[in-house]
């Protein structure tokens, strides 16, 4: 038998795949979530630092620039030592070019300026769609000169921006309507007021963002403040565009994510290893009922067929299998019991003539006999042998089942019956029997000649054997639109009451009567029943009023 593969292996592989995929997916999910959260948190705090420290940084940077210092630690506000700063300014070079070009004013020493300046940062201002960015703080990650990674937050400070006075969360230095700013600025420059002009706002209140700068209260020029040391104080304003960037090392963050990743990988690997150990065990356990059932079936053999399978409460999936097995077992068991009984009965039936043969021959050989005695013995033995042969033939036919002999042709029932009676003529005259035959319209039927001959032979033999001596056997053939039928009826004394029910049992005989010639009478009607069944007809027996009638009906 070709193996369909192992269920255990399939389930194990499927379960392991599932575990692998879910562990992998959840790992990726956890890693991404944590990373996003960390980055968001880091960016937020960086932004806060930027906003708090940008004014000071810008002011210090301008001062340092003026003093020719490129690097100044003064940019760093108190308590912010871990942040490094870079301040650039959009120095006016070409008034016709509206694009700002930032050049460094000053930076702290550890700011990763080289790499940062290679970045193409958005320059702020309206994006292509003309709408303002949600946030004008731009974040990048830059590698420092020492190879360390920094997160950099950059902010472009427009002219007129003023030190934020504590309400920047509402967008105070968010220049809403920045589009206007830009145009204004450009316009302003063309007006020959490249510096010192600005229109600012302060204390942008709620809704302030919607105010146009023009509509804002005019302020005086900032000029005197520019170039002054000490950085811009509160309320100080610049009329140049600056880009302030603050950087913080993300080594810690990276290290944490590294550890997280490693942890997740390890956990995933462990989960897979455990699964690889656990799943086969669980699957084996789950399949235990299958093994139990298979063992139970393995114990099934001819001797135990009559015992129900001992499978208490099979799992729902196996219940149909168990049920159909149980059904098969019951059918097998019944068939087996039938076969066994038949075999045993048949053996007993054969035993009697064999015993007769043996006894006859033994007795003949015990001493010298006359020629006539020998002849008599041999004749007797021949008779026994012939009847045994007939019996064995019938047994073989029964064993093979009559069905395969079906070869349909047009059968003339009347002449078949006449032939059968003719074959019995000798027995009938011995017993003084006569036959009353009504052949009807001699109907023909499309059926199996062999089987119908056998049916008639057995029925007539049965009738001749059991008929009262000197009585009449009545045979009738008839037909109806759908089928043809015939009956054979004989007088019989002392019919047991269960004759009608048991007539078709193999080897059953009314009255257990074994007259010398009736050796295979018991098989006769069983054969008839099987033949009729093979032809798709029906057969019935009626035993009443000392009359035994058998009726066979065949479809046309």
């Amino acid at each position, binding site marked *: 038998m070709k193996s369909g593969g192992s269920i255990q292996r399939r389930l194990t592989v499927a379960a392991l795949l599932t575990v692998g995929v879910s562990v992998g997916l959840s790992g990726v999910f956890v890693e991404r979530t944590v990373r996003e959260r960390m980055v968001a948190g880091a960016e937020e705090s960086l932004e806060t630092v930027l906003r708090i420290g940008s004014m000071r940084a810008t002011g210090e940077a301008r001062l340092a620039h003026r003093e020719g210092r490129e690097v100044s630690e003064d940019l760093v506000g108190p308590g912010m030592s871990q942040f490094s700063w870079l301040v650039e300014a959009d120095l006016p070079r070409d008034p016709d070019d509206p694009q700002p070009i930032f050049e460094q004013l000053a930076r702290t020493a550890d700011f990763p300026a080289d790499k940062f300046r290679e970045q193409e940062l958005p320059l702020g201002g309206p994006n292509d769609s003309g709408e303002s960015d949600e946030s004008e703080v731009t974040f990048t990650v830059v590698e420092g000169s020492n190879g360390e990674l920094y997160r950099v937050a950059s902010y472009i400070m427009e002219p007129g921006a003023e030190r934020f006075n504590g309400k920047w969360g509402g967008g105070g230095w968010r220049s809403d309507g920045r589009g206007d700013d830009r145009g204004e600025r450009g316009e302003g420059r063309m007006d020959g007021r490249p510096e010192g002009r600005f229109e600012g706002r302060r204390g942008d209140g709620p809704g302030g963002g919607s105010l146009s700068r023009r509509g804002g209260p005019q302020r005086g020029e900032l000029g005197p403040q520019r170039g002054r040391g000490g950085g811009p104080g509160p309320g100080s304003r610049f009329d140049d565009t600056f880009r302030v960037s603050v950087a913080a090392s993300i080594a810690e963050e990276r290290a944490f994510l590294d550890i997280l990743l490693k942890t997740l990988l390890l956990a995933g690997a462990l989960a897979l290893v455990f699964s690889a150990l656990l799943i086969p065990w669980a699957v084996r356990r789950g399949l235990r009922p299958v093994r139990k059932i298979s063992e139970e079936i393995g114990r099934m053999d001819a001797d135990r067929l009559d015992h129900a399978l001992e499978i208490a409460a099979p799992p729902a999936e196996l219940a149909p299998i168990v049920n159909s097995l149980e059904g098969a077992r019951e059918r097998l068991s019944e068939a087996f019991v039938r076969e066994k009984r038949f075999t045993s009965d048949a053996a007993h039936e054969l035993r*009697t003539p064999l015993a007769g043969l043996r006894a006859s021959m*033994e*007795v003949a050989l015990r001493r010298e006999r006359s020629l006539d005695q020998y002849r008599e013995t041999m004749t007797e033995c021949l008779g026994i042998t012939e009847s045994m042969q007939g019996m064995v033939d019938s047994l073989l036919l029964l064993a093979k089942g009559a069905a395969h002999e079906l070869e349909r042709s047009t059968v003339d029932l009347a002449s078949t019956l006449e032939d059968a009676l003719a074959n019995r003529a000798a027995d009938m005259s011995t017993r003084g029997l006569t036959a009353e035959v009504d052949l009807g319209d001699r109907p023909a039927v499309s059926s199996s000649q062999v089987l119908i001959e056998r049916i008639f032979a057995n029925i007539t033999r049965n009738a001749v054997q059991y008929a009262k001596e000197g009585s009449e056997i009545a045979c009738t053939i008839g037909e109806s639109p759908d089928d043809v039928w015939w009956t054979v009826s004989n007088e019989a004394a002392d019919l047991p009451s269960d004759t009608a029910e048991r007539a078709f049992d193999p080897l059953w005989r009314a009255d*257990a009567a074994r007259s*010398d010639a009736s050796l295979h009478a018991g098989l006769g009607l069983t054969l008839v029943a099987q033949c009729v069944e093979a032809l798709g007809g029906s057969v019935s027996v009626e035993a009443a009023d000392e009359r035994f009638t058998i009726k066979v009906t065949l479809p046309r």
Partner: protein
Amino acid sequence: MRVLVVEDYGPIRGAVVTALRDEGWTVELAADGTTAHQFFKDDQVFDLVVLDLMIPGIDGLTLLTALRSEGVDSHILVLTARDEVESRVNALNAGADDYLTKPFAMEELVARARALLRRHYAKKSPVLSVGPVSVTISDHRVTVKDEVVDLTAREYALLEYFMFRAGEIVSREELHSNLYGDSGASASSNVVDVYVGYLRKKLEAGGVPRILHTRRGQGYILEFRDEAGGAGAE
């Protein structure tokens, strides 16, 4: 010896009858239980009944029970086609003396029949002896003073019966029915006398004293008397 064989299957019945007749016994036969029962109803006496249990009419077990309840004291050997313990036990419990399972060897049947007959006449030894005369039942060997005597089947049957009933008076009717069955029991009873005469002649050939005595009006008795009684009757 009178034996009744009740068996429905002709070949076996015929063989059993032949074998038992070969023993010199008188054998009656019946093919069904009803016929068999009729023999006893006709007051016929049998030393042994060979009874098949599966017979038409009254079945074997019922017949057995009926016979025993009617006081029939023949020994009964049961034949059974099925070698099931139960049917044998039932038969023995119903009054059978022995059983034989089909198919059987004819020698065994005959040997069991002999054994049952010995038991029937309360003899243990297979060799019956009265005075100088000995009869070995199994091979019909008859010796007088250790000399083998040749007897015909009839003479042997007669002697065997006398030997079994040694010391008892046996009527002419009994002897006749043992020799010829029940046919013509009343008829020429001098047939018995003729055979007794033959038998005496052969047994007394070497001057052996008479052991087969006539009891006038009653029949015969097989008996060994000392020399003193030698001048016996006749």
